[in-house]
Structures are given as C-alpha cells and as structure tokens.
C-alpha cells in the first residue's frame, strides 16, 4: 500500500506556493486576502487530517511502530537525495511515534494558530506575505520532525530559522523589529554551527546520517549496539563530543543559556508568530532533536549532565526574569525560556519522554496564553504594556476565561495538563542518576513556584486590577502596513511612538475594548479544552509513555542507571500541587491588595532596588554580550580585520586580480577580429600546436 505521508509535507508547501504567487493569481487585494485566509489554514488542517490517518493506518500497524517512506511519492525510500563521494543521504520520511507526535502538534496546533491568524492579520495589507512565511514555516518544521536523517533535519532546522527571522521582522519598517530578527538569526548561527559540526562528527563516526536504516545501519541502531561504522566499540569521548555539539545546536534553537537572548526579543513579531514559532513548535525543536538522538545521549553521560545543568539554569533564570517584566508578551517569552529549561532538565536526567510530554502540554497552554495575550492586545488596539491595562475581566470575559485556564495550566494547578507534565519532570529530576536529585528537585520546585507567581501576576495586572486606561480613547498601536491608515501613518509612525490623534480605529468601535472575532476565539476555546484535558488523559494513564516508547532510548541502555525518586508519585503530586497553588495564591494576595496601581512598589523604588535592576536587565546577559561581542569584538573587527585584513589584504588581492584579468581580457580580445580568415588561422595554429605537442610527446616517450 503506498504511503500518503508525503502529503503531510507537500500540502503546506502547496499552500506556501499559492500564497507566494497570490499576487499573480488574484488581481484584487481583497480577493487575494480572502483566498489566502482559506488556503493557508486549510492546507495545514488538511495535513493534520492526513497525519492522523497516517498515524492510524501506517505507523501503529507497523512493526516497531516505525516506517520509512519516500518524501516523493513513487520513489523508493532508498532513492538518494545526495550521493557524492560515498556520502549518501536519502529523501525519506521517518514515521514513528515521535515524528508523528510532532507532526500532530505542528499541524494541529499550527492549524489552530493559522485560523487565529486569519483574524489577527485580517487588516494587514501584507497578510498574504505573512501566510506565505507561515505555511513555509510549517513545511520546514515538518521536514525537521519527519526527515529520516540528520541532513533533512538540518534543512528543516535552517528553514524554520529563516522563517522565524522573516516573521520576527515581519513589520520590518520598525527598525527594532528588524534588529530583533537579526539578533535571532545571528544567535542561531552559533547554534547551527554546533549542529553542523555535530552532524559531520556523526558522519565520520557512523558513516551515515540516517537515524534508522535497514539491518541496523542507522546511527541510532549502531549507537544502541554501542558500535561505530566498522563495528568497533564506541568511544565515549567521541560520543560526548557529538552530543555536546548537537546540544549547542539545540541551545540556539531552543533558547537555552547562553544562547537564549534572542527569544525575548523575538516577541517583536506578530503574536501568532510568537505562539506558533516561539512557543509551540520551533523552539521545542531542540528537545525533539535530543529525543531523536536519545540513543546517542544515553551513551554520553557527560553530555547528558551538561544538558541537565543548562536546562535547570535556564528554567531558573527565565523564571526570575519573568517576575519583573511589564510587557505581557515578554512575560510569556521568559516563561517560555523557563519552560524550555524544564524540558531540557527532563532530557538531562534521562527522561526524554517527560521532556516530550512537556513539549506537548506546553504547546497547548503556551499557544493558548500567547493567543490569549494576542486577543488582549487586539482588544487593546495594540497595547502590550500591562501597566496600562487592568480590569479587562469585565470587558472581555471570554478572553479572560481562556487566559485563566492557560494560567492555571502552566502554573501546574492540580489536574490541569501542566501539572502532570511538570510533575513528571520534577519526579525524574529528583531521581537524577548523578545523585544530585535534591538540588535539581529543589530548584525545580522553586522555579515552579515562581512560574505560578508571575503568571498570576500577569492575570492580576491585566484582568483584575482597576483599569489604567480610559475605555473609548485607546490609541491605535497598529503597524505601518495595516490597511486603513497607511497614508496617515506613513512609514515611521507606528507601534510604540503611536501617539496619533486623528480619530481612526472606527473599524473597532472608536477605541473601545472589544472581544475578538470568532476566528480568533474558536481556536482559543479548542486550545483551552486541550490545556485542560491533554495532561489528565495522556499522563497518569501512561498512554503517552507507551505511545512514545519505540522512539526513545531507555536510560539504562547506556552506562547510567535510573535511581528511585526522592518521594513517591502521590506525594510528588501533592507537593507540586501545593507549590502551584502557593505561587498563585501569593500573587493573588500581593496584587489583590493593590488593586489601584497593580504595582507592588513605585517605579522610583524599583529603579533603586539592585535586585530588580539585575532581573530587569535579564541578568545582564545582553550587557555582557554587547560589551564582549559588539564593543570589543566590533573594535577588533573594525581596526584589525576591516582596515588591514579586509581592505589591504583581501580587497587588495581581489581588486588586483580583477584589474589584471580585465587588462588581459582587453588585450587578448584583439585576436577576435571578426574575420573568418583570422579564425581559420587560429584553427590552423591549434592544429599545428596539437600536432607538434602530441608528436613531441610521442618522441619523448619512444626515445
């Protein structure tokens, strides 16, 4: 039976092509936007349906729940993509529980976010461009998760990076957005270099890049047997190097310390982008990659430990910074950083399944939160600063409701989805194979407490405290390429300077707060239901664990062994629940008592507080990077590399050669007279040269 899995990948690409060429297909902007708003979510949802069908008909029926099918229908999965010098990479799609899970997340939650975005971006003049990138992102993400080898993952990896860049700076007329895009791209370069090096190392050790191959020829299969290409036992040091390099890649993509600085800035993109790319899917690619390579990682305890520590540090640092943010999306951004840290913590202690479970639940509730915050921003006509919000519960109760569910889910309120996945991670952290379980568990709990606190802080500042704006006189913060006011705004009057007073915004009812349209609300309801149910249905029932089992290596495959957790599961639940409720309650108490301002202290006292300044400065990461890489590195680049190496050495050589070539060219072109007789003479010259040359060679050889 032919596989239909290729459809999953090709459908979004089709959508991408349609959207990209929409300008040629439809002459009129309205028609174009309308077509795009149906096609773009349509293809993603269709891909979701195909994913479900493939999962049921092809994956669950296969032996080991693992099949490799061709990317291009009709070809064999063994058809090489590249076949040079013994280097082979195939065009296959690896269908197994892990890839199907991610495909479902990408197309399912991605589809919902697409629907949401049709509402959110409806007024943007460049809506087709937005959905072009969006569909392309889905395509690349699917390549990343479904590809059957590292090279395809790398293509997807770079592809999602590019889409992320394009979408962060989607409103590129604002220089800050363009800078944020650049920052994301450049920081990711560092990680990608690690990934690429890791890939090369894998190639040199295993002689292939395929995860799984026939007769155990895949990287993972060899790693499971603890042998390399030639059948020699694996060198632990080499595997540790490979895993560390791959993890550097994951650090970049998944915003881990020290490469996490781009993610908060990435919130400059439209909110659906933050939800889809910078919360639900792309940033979890690192976790997916680690899980995909779990066979390698369990053989490299050193690398695993590194993953664990980095994850823990990121979770903690992210949460602390989240405590002091005042931009609603930035709170969520730091929360994402922190939650990603959790996922890596899980991987680091060898419980990849828990990491992936958190990926799944996090995708649901973080998408919900981002989209909810997007709805809030939409309702507030583009305002993102929580200091200028408040009291929205009465004005937009439905948005409040979904945000409420999202908050409780991420905080780990008992029996919501975040509770189960986080508890699983904390439980396995306490069972750390290195015996540092107490520390990991303790910091993990502290972070969970902070998460609950800052999330409820967000809820209070936004929804419960008194309104700090006048309803009906909201200023629009729309971006320059929003439809109606293009001329009035010009290119530079946009978002954050947005003090414009020419009575626009009538389309939204005169600057009043309003509930979002159904195209935005329906995805929110679906995500809210998912945030509630996913955890309890899949977690305690062990459905998820069993489902993912064929894709994940067991820790005891390597030199490590599992340790019993510090506390039994039930006690762990109680502790987790208590911590979550504690955090929520503390925030409720603190902010509930300051209904009017929504602030704990005055702005003045905040500035004076060194701890606050430290956190608000994001632990000074950006400052240090600026100092080291931009200032010092920039000076070095300017004074040494540019003035000497570039200008004198390289430019000198290049220009010199170019001039020489030009001169030679001008000289020898004179031979080209346009006269046939001269050309014939040229041929004759060649004849003589060839005859003399060959006969001279003959004489030399036969002397």
């Amino acid at each position, binding site marked *: 039976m032919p596989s239909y899995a290729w459809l999953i990948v090709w459908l979004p690409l089709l959508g991408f092509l349609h959207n990209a060429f929409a300008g040629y297909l439809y002459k009129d902007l309205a028609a174009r936007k309308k077509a795009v708003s149906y096609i773009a979510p349509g293809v993603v949802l269709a891909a979701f349906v195909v994913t479900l069908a493939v999962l049921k008909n092809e994956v669950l029926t296969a032996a080991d729940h693992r099949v490799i099918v061709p990317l*291009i229908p009709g*070809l064999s999965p063994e*058809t*090489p*993509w*590249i*076949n*040079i*010098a013994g280097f*082979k*990479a*195939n*065009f296959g799609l690896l269908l197994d529980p892990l890839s199907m899970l991610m495909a479902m997340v990408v197309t399912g939650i991605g589809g919902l976010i697409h629907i949401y975005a049709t509402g959110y971006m409806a007024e943007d003049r460049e809506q087709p461009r937005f959905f072009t990138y969006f569909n392309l992102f889905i395509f690349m993400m699917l390549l990343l998760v479904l590809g059957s080898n590292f090279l395809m993952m790398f293509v997807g990896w770079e592809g999602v990076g590019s889409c992320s860049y394009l979408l962060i700076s989607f409103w590129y007329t604002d220089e800050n957005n363009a800078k944020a895009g650049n920052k994301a791209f450049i920081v990711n370069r560092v990680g990608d270099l690690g990934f690429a090096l890791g890939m090369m190392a894998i190639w040199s050790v295993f002689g292939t890049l395929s995860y799984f191959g026939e007769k155990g020829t895949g990287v993972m299969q060899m790693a499971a047997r603890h042998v390399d290409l030639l059948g020699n036992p694996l060198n632990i040091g080499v595997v540790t190097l490979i895993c560390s390099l791959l993890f550097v890649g994951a650090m970049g993509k998944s915003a881990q310390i020290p490469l996490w600085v781009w993610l908060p800035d990435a919130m400059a993109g439209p909110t659906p982008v933050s939800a889809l790319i910078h919360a639900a899917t792309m940033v979890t690619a690192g976790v997916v990659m680690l899980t995909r390579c779990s066979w390698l990682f369990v053989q490299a305890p050193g690398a695993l430990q590194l993953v664990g520590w980095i994850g823990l540090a990121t979770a903690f640092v992210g949460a602390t910074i989240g405590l002091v943010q005042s931009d609603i999306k930035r709170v969520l951004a730091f929360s994402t950083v922190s939650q990603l840290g959790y996922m890596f913590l899980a991987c680091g202690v060898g419980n990849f399944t828990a990491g992936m479970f958190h990926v799944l639940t996090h995708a649901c509730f973080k998408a919900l939160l981002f989209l909810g915050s997007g709805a809030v921003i939409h309702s507030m006509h583009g305002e993102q600063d929580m200091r200028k919000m408040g009291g929205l519960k009465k004005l937009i109760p439905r948005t409040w409701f979904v945000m409420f569910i999202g908050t409780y889910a991420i905080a780990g309120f008992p029996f919501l989805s975040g509770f189960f996945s986080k508890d699983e991670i904390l439980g396995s952290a306490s069972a750390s194979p290195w015996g540092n379980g107490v520390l990991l568990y303790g910091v993990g709990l502290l972070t969970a407490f902070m998460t609950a606190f800052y999330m409820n802080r967000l809820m209070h500042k936004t929804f419960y405290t008194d309104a700090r704006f006048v309803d009906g006189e909201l200023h629009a913060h729309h971006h320059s390429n929003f439809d109606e006011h293009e001329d009035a705004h010009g290119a530079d009057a946009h978002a954050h300077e947005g003090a414009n007073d020419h009575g626009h915004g009538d389309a939204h009812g005169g600057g009043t707060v309003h509930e979002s349209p159904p195209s935005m609300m329906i995805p929110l309801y679906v995500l809210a239901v998912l945030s509630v149910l996913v955890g309890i249905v899949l977690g305690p029932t062990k459905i998820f664990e069993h489902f993912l089992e064929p894709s994940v290596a067991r820790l005891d495959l390597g030199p490590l062994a599992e340790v019993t957790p510090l506390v039994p599961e039930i006690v762990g639940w109680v502790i987790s629940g208590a911590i979550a409720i504690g955090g929520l309650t503390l925030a409720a108490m603190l902010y509930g008592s300051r209904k009017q301002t929504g602030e704990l202290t005055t702005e003045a006292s905040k500035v004076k507080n060194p701890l606050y300044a430290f956190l608000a400065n994001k632990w000074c990461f950006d400052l240090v990077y600026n100092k080291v890489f931009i200032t010092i590195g920039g000076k070095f680049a300017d004074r040494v590399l540019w003035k000497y190496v570039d200008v004198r050495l390289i430019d000198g050589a290049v220009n010199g050669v*170019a001039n020489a*070539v*030009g001169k*030679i*060219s*001008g000289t*020898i*072109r004179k*031979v*080209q007279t*346009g006269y*046939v007789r*001269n*050309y*014939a003479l*040229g*041929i004759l*010259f*060649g*004849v003589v*040269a*060839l*005859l003399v*040359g*060959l*006969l001279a*060679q*003959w004489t030399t*050889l*036969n002397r």
Partner: protein
Amino acid sequence: MILSNGASLAAIAPILAVMITGMIVLLGDSCLKLWRQAKWVSPTISVLGLVVSAALACSLIGTSGQQLAFSGALTADAFSQACNIILAVIAALAVMGSATYLENRGLQHGEYYVLVLFSTSGAMLMAAASELIVLFVAVEILSVALYVLAGYARTERKSEEAALKYFLLGAFAGGFLLYGIALIYGGSSSIVPGQVGTTNLRALGIYLHQMPAPNQMFIAGTALLMVGLAFKAALVPFHMWTPDVYEGAPTSVTAFMAAAAKVGAFAAILRVFNAFIPISEYWLIIVQVLAVATMFGGNILAVVQDNVKRILAYSSIAHAGYLMVGISALTGSGAATDALKAEAHSAAMGGITFYLLAYGIMTMGAFGVLIWISRRGRDVQTLNDLKGLVKTDPVAAYTMLIFMLSLGGIPPTMGFMGKWFLFYATLQAGQLWLAVTLALASIISIYYYLRVVWVMCFTEPDENAVAPGRAVASGGVVVSLIASAAATLLFGVAPGLLHSLMDAASTVLRP
C-alpha cells in the same frame, strides 16, 4: 553484446523517433495546407516526438548495458540513452522556447523544427557512434542543420554572416576531422592484428589496451581528430567562431546550438578519449592544456563583453573547459591503484553526464530569458537592454538570476552540483592542480555572471534602450523557462534524483 540488426533498430529507437518526427513535420508542413496554417502544429508535433524519444530512452536506459548495434558501428549502451534523454530535453526546451520568438519575427516555418530535430538526431548519433566514420556522418548531420539554422533569419545580415562563418570554419575543421580519421585508420594497421587498420573505437580501445604503442601516424591522427571535435566543442583556440555565430544567429537557435552541439561534441569526445585511455600518456597533457586554456580563455574574454549573447558564448566556451577537466579525470592518471583509477573513471563519467544536463538546462534557460524579454520587437542582446530589468519585469530578472547563479556554480543550483561532481572526479583522479585551476577559473566567471545580475537589479532602466514591457505569458517559452528554472533548483538541491542517469554513464567502461 552485439545485437542483431532488428534488435539494433529497437535499441536506437529514441534516435529514430526524433528522425521520423522530423520527416513527419517536413512532409506535413510542406504538403498540408491546414497544418501549415495552424502555426502551433509543427512545434507541438516536434515536442511530442521528443517526449516519445525521451520516454523510449528512459525505458531503454535500464536494460541497455553494453550493447553494440549494427555490427559495432553504434554503441547503444546506457550512456548513449542518457545522452538521448539529455538531448531530447534540450531540444524540447528549444522548440518550446522558439515558437514565440519566430512568430514575432515572421520566421515561423515548419523547416525550423525539422532542422532542430535533425540536428538533435545528429547529436544523438554522435553520442552513440563507436565507429569514427559514423561519428563523422553524425557530426555532419548535426552541423549542416545548424549551419542552416544559424542563417535562419534570412533577412538579417548578422544571421547570414553567422551562418557563413560557421559553415566555412565548420567545413575547415570537418576536413581535419576526416583527415584524422584517415590517419588513424592508417596508423592503426600496425597495432591491429592482420595489418588492417580500423576506425572502430571499441576495437581500437581493445587493441590499444593490449599494445599501447601507437605509431606517429596514429598520434597525428589523434591530434587531428581532437581538432575536429574541439572545434565542435568550441575549445580554445578553436573557439573563435563561437561568439560571432552565437551573436549573429537568432537567439532561439543560439540557445539550441549552444546546448545541443556541446552535448553531442562532448559525448563524442568522451567516447573517443575513453577508447584512447590506454595511450593517455600521449594525449593527457594536451587535453589538460586545452582544458586550462579553454577555462581561462573563455572566462577572461567574457569579462569585457557587453553583449549578453556574447557573454553566454564565452561562458559556453568556459564550460567546455570545465568538461575537458572531466575528460582529463577519466584517465585517473594520478590515482594510485587500479581500483582508484576505476573509481575516478566512473566519477568522471557520472560528473560529465550530470554536467552536460546541467549545462544544457541552464543555457537553455538563460537564452530563454533573453527570448522571453525580447518578445516585443527588438532583440534584447546587450547589457544595456537589461538595465533595471528587475523593475520592468521582475519575474524575468529573478529567473535570469537563477540561471546566472547556476552558470556561475553557486548553490543551490544544478551548476554548483555539476561543478562539484567534476571537482570531485578530478580529485579522485589525483589531479589536484587541475581541480584548483577549475576552481580559480570559476571564480573569474562569477564576475561576469554577477555583472548581468548587477545590471538587472542595481541599475535604473535605460531610457534609450528598449524598455521591455511586462512580458505577457506566451505559452511555450514560459513552460520552457519554468521547467528549466525548476529543474535547475530541484536538481541543485537533490542531485540524487538523477542518480540513474549518472549510473548509466558509468556503464562506459575503461578499455
């Protein structure tokens, strides 16, 4: 395996398909009024015939192996089928791209397509010929049709001049080719048992392998044979006709000529030099000198040109140089062991085949863009005409960009992969210096390819030049362009899809 005569006919079915299509179009166009009046019939039938030919070749490529047809006069092996596919693709692209161009200039006659088909069949025969006499006949079938095509715009002086120049020089070089064949026949009498000479390449390969001691006459014959083929392939210093002829001929003809003649010529060169590998110590250095001279000559001369057709002409010369590097790699001269030599040989074979297809497609594409934007009135030829194209016709500009990048060998295009294959083969053959030279020469080439891009994208449209309006979609040429651009990118990203084509080339064994 020597095929019976009947089986031989079946084995060259792709070539026959092209010839028969040519005759059908010839008769239909001259004898049927309706056919003649409906301008689309001839090109459509031609494309259909070429598609049939390519399909036949595809179906035969897997089973061909090492077949000798017509008592060894033709080699109907997988390599020749691969060349058939490449040539059919090129010819189909050319036919599709021509219709609009000819229509605009009142040149739309059935004979055009007949000539294209006949010269295609000639090129196909060149790829299959394993008898030097057949090779000569094939060269003439290709060339005579091309001479006429070059002068197809009969009312234009440039076109007439191009045809005459091409014809005179072609006849001159053809004489050397024939003389070379005669000398080889005479010279081989000393190495062929029984004192009778031969012009059969396979036999020559076998004899030379057994006794690699050619006499002077044989060597002189080799030199002259090389001259004849080098003229067809436009190697320096036999290249001088190329820019003039390419410039003068109608653009649609130039495109076809650049691609098909080169593929045919290199297929023949490959066959000849493959047979002569046992005596490579005699000719290798000459081939390498030719390769270097051609790479640098073509690229350096292209730098100062202002006419895009001339730039592409010199670029085609440079590409011939790259392909000669592949021929040099065939010998595996620097490889240590026989196994490594065989590996280099098969890498070079695959590389050359891939490169021929890549070259064909990207050349057709680049000229196709010129055809497309000159569909209103005057020919677009000079860089001046291309100024600011990105503003006046962005799609054409971006398409041109793809082909320029590909010709320059920049990823992710077919041109890059092709160069990489050749580079790899050269390294396998242990000819490091040649590989480095290849890389250096391509660096020069980037200059003039990007110059075209620069002119298109970073200059303002010239008031005086023909400001091409937005090109309205015009059937064939659009299909041809889309197909070439898509193939350039697709096979640049996934060269593995062509692995059966490349494997086919490896069936040509070292003698």
